[in-house]
């Protein structure tokens, strides 16, 4: 199962990636992040205590994490915001530890965490027209850190809105591989 989470604000790359995955008959779900209500993580510790493994607050995170926890690959499509994710995207991402393992592991001599056993892929697609090389690199570094800390495979891309179909096909091929 591939889950595409897309902040569709001023971009349609998420939709194009989703449609191409569907055309390949991949098992894929599409979640439009800009329409959902996910509150901030208050770092209250509820998910490691009273409501173990679940956020103490009731919002759209309830069904979004219900879908993510069943996924094998997460594809995050987001406007690039100062080399980072959009606000709406980051609200969901901030709570990803809910579907992760609390324990620590060692990878390349460093401490890391892990996601639920079935999640093995994380792809970050940033969208911004005329994005500077510096900002592209900042976004790619951030996604690389996410991939590392979650102990999954994946990649990062930064695309213009009018990116060619060929480029979308290449990314989809990598994701579905």
């Amino acid at each position, binding site marked *: 199962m591939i889950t595409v989470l897309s902040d569709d604000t001023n971009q349609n790359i998420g939709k194009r990636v989703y449609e191409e995955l569907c055309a390949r008959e991949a098992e894929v779900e599409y979640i439009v992040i800009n329409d959902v209500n996910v509150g901030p993580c208050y770092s209250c510790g509820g998910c490691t205590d009273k409501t173990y493994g679940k956020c103490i607050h009731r919002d759209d995170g309830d069904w979004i994490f219900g879908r993510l926890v069943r996924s094998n690959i997460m594809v995050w499509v987001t406007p690039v915001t*100062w080399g980072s994710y959009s606000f709406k995207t980051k609200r969901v991402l901030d709570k990803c530890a809910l579907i992760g393992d609390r324990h620590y592991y060692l990878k390349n001599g460093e*401490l890391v965490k892990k996601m639920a056993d079935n999640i093995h892929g994380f792809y970050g697609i940033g969208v911004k027209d005329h994005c500077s090389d510096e900002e592209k690199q900042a976004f790619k570094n951030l996604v690389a850190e996410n991939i590392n800390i979650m102990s999954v495979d994946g990649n990062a891309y930064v695309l213009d809105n009018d990116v060619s179909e060929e480029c979308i096909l290449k990314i989809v091929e990598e994701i579905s591989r």
Partner: protein
Amino acid sequence: MKKAVIINLSPQKIGTSAMLGKLCLDFLNKKGLQREMIHLYPHLKDLTPVLKAIDGADTVIMVGPCYIDTYPADTVYFLEEIIKDQTILHDQSLYGIIQGGMPYVHTHESGLKMLELFAKECNINYKGGFVIGLGAMLDGQSLDKLPNGKKVNRFFNEFLNHVAKGENSNAALYGNAQLKLPGFVYWAMAKGMNKMIDKELKEKDIDVTLPSPYLKSEQPNE
């Protein structure tokens, strides 16, 4: 520097970020500089007091926790709101402090890069930042409690000295403060921390072998 505003980007008013903010306050106070600290989260519905504080300052210090390798989502929202009202931006100096659970600076540095790119876009002066690892372990206690506490304290004070003088602070400063240990020590640390987690769960009678509660969750249209 005429006046510094320290903005706590953490949802917690008492915690490691607030403790670091307090260290900034005390340091600037000793130097006889005007300063104030303001917490972001109580003002999320109406940012006016925070925006006013930025307008009245010539130095802005943003201090916050690291959530999945950068500042929390609401920092992005906050920066988006600042940039909407460019009249409050008048050549201020901007510094960042980010603290997170992992001991490595590379895990948290993306947060500082975001502030640097933000500053570039709105023509204010990003003058550097400081990264502190193992911040979650502190839970608001003093930096001395860190295994590399002495080093962190020394380099963090050097950073604050740069802030007080309005100077640039180089990334090498926090790089030097990082805890550097061989892989087998981290392996032993992981074992120890996992043991503590398991003990805590056992005491709370939590069965981690149960499937995620989200596997039971309803779909939005059901």
